[in-house]
């Protein structure tokens, strides 16, 4: 088959060509992974910042070397985001929020090694699956991606929001309150449809709304630290023992079906431009919980709850490359930077890449994704000890450092001091909510999806001029039905369970 011979060409290109020494590609991938993990770990720095920072260094490189360096940074940043989510409850990327639920809980129980290890494994499997999907199914998936118009995007956002219902079963109402706050706060800023300011009180900093990353850092990192301090009698004495023991392979092997399913979800949802990794991770988490036999363990450090979103996030990186490479449409902020960077190397993303004269480049990129994921397994494995060591530091030291880095990170997103105040404000707000039992993750999800829902809702109404469009567009109708089921199913199954229990006389 041509595809396979192309892939073999790609792999051999990684081993060096006439103009590239054999060690260069591997070294570049290694550097890319380390940079990617670093920007992912740091709250406030993201894959897109990492890429933009590294682009000027690629000017003098061979196009092949440049493209695999960028791809390595891009794919490993999502793993970096899960590390800080698990270790210190500070999701480095929005997708990692879903990993923090169970990952950080397991860390608090003293088993960060287990949490980090299973997330790493899931991420790598997800990354490999995403690459496979990218290679074999990019054409049909790109066709589906194009079918998503405003009405379908709106319904997808609504579907994403309904996952809140299955996420929090203990205090569902408080979760809904938190969701509604997030939705309402996201309406602050210039209205994209007619350009008029809303709830900005004349402040130019608010014209684009609250910047998401500082709000996320505040709600999670700062809020978590404040909550911890409140619950500590004498902080200096708290020095928890953390185990860097990795999960057993048999434990992970028993999750193979879940990881495979979540990876596919990640790759497919990641391929829809604009939806991306975050929705994929949340859908995978909700789906894992719905189908799990141990539902009660979710939120208490369940390995299923860690691996499902991790593998979805890992796979969505490959998925997001599908619209980029086949249509030339970036599906996320990071892939948008990739397009610009590739253009500078005279590589125009799009179907032309697959023409014979360019194919070595593309297949070398694919090959580098496989090599990169394999290398990430080793780097991540050896890094785990380091992370565990870091979080074993005395809490007073650890918290102070996290806070200062969180504030720098908030500044770095837009180089704005206002955002640092936003981070503090959301931090205190998050602490007040959490100490009273209001979960903050639904608020984050609402902040991600709120704008997408509103913009597409109004775009759909503008272009079609009728309310029925959400039901006549088949994709939108399917998603709305799924949204209804995901909202109602948890309520229904709980009611049934309660009835069964009462009939048994418990």
């Amino acid at each position: 088959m041509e595809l396979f011979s192309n892939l073999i060409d790609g792999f051999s290109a990684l081993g060096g060509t006439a103009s590239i020494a054999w060690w260069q590609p591997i070294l570049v991938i290694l550097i890319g992974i380390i940079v990617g993990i670093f920007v992912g770990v740091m709250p406030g720095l993201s894959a897109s910042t990492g890429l933009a920072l590294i682009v000027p260094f690629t000017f003098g490189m061979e196009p092949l070397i440049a493209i695999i360096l960028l791809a390595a940074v891009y794919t490993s940043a999502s793993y970096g985001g899960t590390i800080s989510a698990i270790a210190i409850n500070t999701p480095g990327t929005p997708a990692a929020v879903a990993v923090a639920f169970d990952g950080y809980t397991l860390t608090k129980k003293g088993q960060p090694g287990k949490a980090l290890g299973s997330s790493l494994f899931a991420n790598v499997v997800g990354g490999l699956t995403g690459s496979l999907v990218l290679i074999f199914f990019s054409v049909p998936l790109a066709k589906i991606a194009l079918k998503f118009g405003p009405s379908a995007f709106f319904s997808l956002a609504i579907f994403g929001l309904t996952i809140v219902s299955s996420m929090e079963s203990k205090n569902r109402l408080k979760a809904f309150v938190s969701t509604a706050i997030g939705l309402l706060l996201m309406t602050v800023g210039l209205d994209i449809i007619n350009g008029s300011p809303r709830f900005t009180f004349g402040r130019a900093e608010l014209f684009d709304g609250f910047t998401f990353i500082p709000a996320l850092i505040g709600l999670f990192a700062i809020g978590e630290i404040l909550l911890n301090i409140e619950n500590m009698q004498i902080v200096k004495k708290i020095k928890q023992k953390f185990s860097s023991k990795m999960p057993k392979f048999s434990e992970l092997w028993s999750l193979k079906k879940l990881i495979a399913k979540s990876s596919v979800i990640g790759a497919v949802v990641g391929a829809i431009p604009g939806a991306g990794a975050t929705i994929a991770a949340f859908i995978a988490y909700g789906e894992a919980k719905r189908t799990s036999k141990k539902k009660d363990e979710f939120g208490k450090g369940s390995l299923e709850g860690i691996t499902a979103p991790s593998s979805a996030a890992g796979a969505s990186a490959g998925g997001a490359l599908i619209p980029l490479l086949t249509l030339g449409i970036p599906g996320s902020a990071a892939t948008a930077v990739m397009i610009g960077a590739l253009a500078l190397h005279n590589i125009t993303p799009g179907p032309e890449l697959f023409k014979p004269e360019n194919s070595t480049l593309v297949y070398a990129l694919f090959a580098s994704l496989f090599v990169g994921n394999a290398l990430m397994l080793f780097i991540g494995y050896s890094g785990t000890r380091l992370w565990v060591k870091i979080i074993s530091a005395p809490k007073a030291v650890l918290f102070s450092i996290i806070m200062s880095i969180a504030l720098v990170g908030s500044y770095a997103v837009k180089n704005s001091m206002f955002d640092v105040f936003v981070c503090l404000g959301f931090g205190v707000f998050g602490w007040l909510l959490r100490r009273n039992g209001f979960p903050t993750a639904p608020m984050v999800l609402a902040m991600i999806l709120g704008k997408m829902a509103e913009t597409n809702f109004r775009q759909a109404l503008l272009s079609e001029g009728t309310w029925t469009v959400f039901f006549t567009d088949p994709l939108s109708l399917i998603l709305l039905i799924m949204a209804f089921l995901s909202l109602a199913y948890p309520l229904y199954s709980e009611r049934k369970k309660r009835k069964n229990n009462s009939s048994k006389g418990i």
Partner: protein
Amino acid sequence: MSKRVLLIIILFLSISSFGIGAEYPNKPITILVHTKPGGAVDLMARTLSRVADNYCDQPLVVVNKPGGGGIIAGARLLSSKADGYTILAFPATFIPTLQTTDIGIGLDDLKYLACLTISPEAIITNPNSEINSLEKIISHAKANPGTQKWCGPGTGSLDHLMAVKFWEKADIKVKWIPYGGGSQAMGAVMGKHADVYVGNPEDILGRQKNLNIVGVSTEKRLDAFPEVPTLIEKGIDLPNEVMWRGFVVHKNTNDEITKYLVDLFEKCSKDSIWQNYINRTMVTPVFMKNEKFKELVYNDVESSRKYLKIAGFELDKNANEAPYLTLFLFGIFIISFLIVYLVFKKKDIKINGTISILTITGILSVTFFYISSFFPAPREGLFVSSATVPKVWSIFLFIVSVIGLKLYYKNPTDETAKKGENVKSVISLSFLILAYITLISIIGFFISTGLFLISSMLIMRYKKYISLLLTTTLVLLFMYIVFIKILMVPLPIGSIF
């Protein structure tokens, strides 16, 4: 004070001021960019910064200040010293922004250095759809007035204005669907969710299968697309609509510095790396300096005002603000808490955190509803406005808050709360962070971070003083090396240091 000391001071001052005057760039020059990293303007600035390394002793550092369509970056330029160390990348997208927002940045506040690239506006369609040529666009729009879907980034954007101009010249009536960005709008045309996209010729690169240019706004056909007609050829009188990208500084910058920068840009524009960038991104290189650039900008302003009005913007008119907002908030606050207090008193339940939060979210929802009822009414023919969605969400928040209060009233137990004893430490820490943030903009990042780390550890009663100081030093060193030396991420600057 002895004369000798005075003499030394005078000598020192004169040397230092002489030094500044003689060799203008004696520290890095900042290029402000109003988009996030990766945009077209950002790429231009970063390429320029790299090329300038060959011609200038000091680096040109790109700093992204996104927000408000350029307002934030513009305000930053005007608030910094007019010493030539802050330059603003100034693309044509600024023109509508400055017209539609009343934020105190005027075109006369700027000094125009040079315009380096232009790209013509282009009308783009999907070759696989029925509407795939200028003739078809016009005949379809005339046959079905008000149904054809045009799209591009935002409302009141440069591309939107181009569309409005086209509609006026072609005398057609169609719809404008704004998208978050160019690539999303292109995706919509590729997926046939919209009919026409307004952008630049380079937008179709690599997307020729799904996008084709049907007309460009130039006098002559483009070399790169000889088969694409100009708009004039087809009788639409728009010969010169371009997206230009240039650089400006504060208006008080002295002429010597301006000249240095213009010369620097001129050298850069002849560099081979720059030429390479031009070829790859398919923009047209130009070099319009000072007055010529200014003329280009001012001409654009003239026409943009006219077409923004046609597009429905009410220029020179303040937005409707909700009247008596403070009074309203105050009143609703007292009334709500009074009601909640009286209701819960019946069952002898004290007002606690959960009740307060639910009451406050209730108040929040009512306030948002109140403010949004003063938003501009829906435009003609639309049944949703900017107020619709905020109103829906605030009703949702109100309902869940009230249900929450009711449930708590029925069953006042709170298993999910995680309260602790140490509220005092939390409050003092929050104020410490506030003080830290405030201090950063006065005494600079590193000193205040050091102070913050020390006092935060002390608040958490960490008493190993040596390791405390060691940690602080190490963290500062780490931040300096990683952020400043390796990643070159700009850190906040204080007014003193």
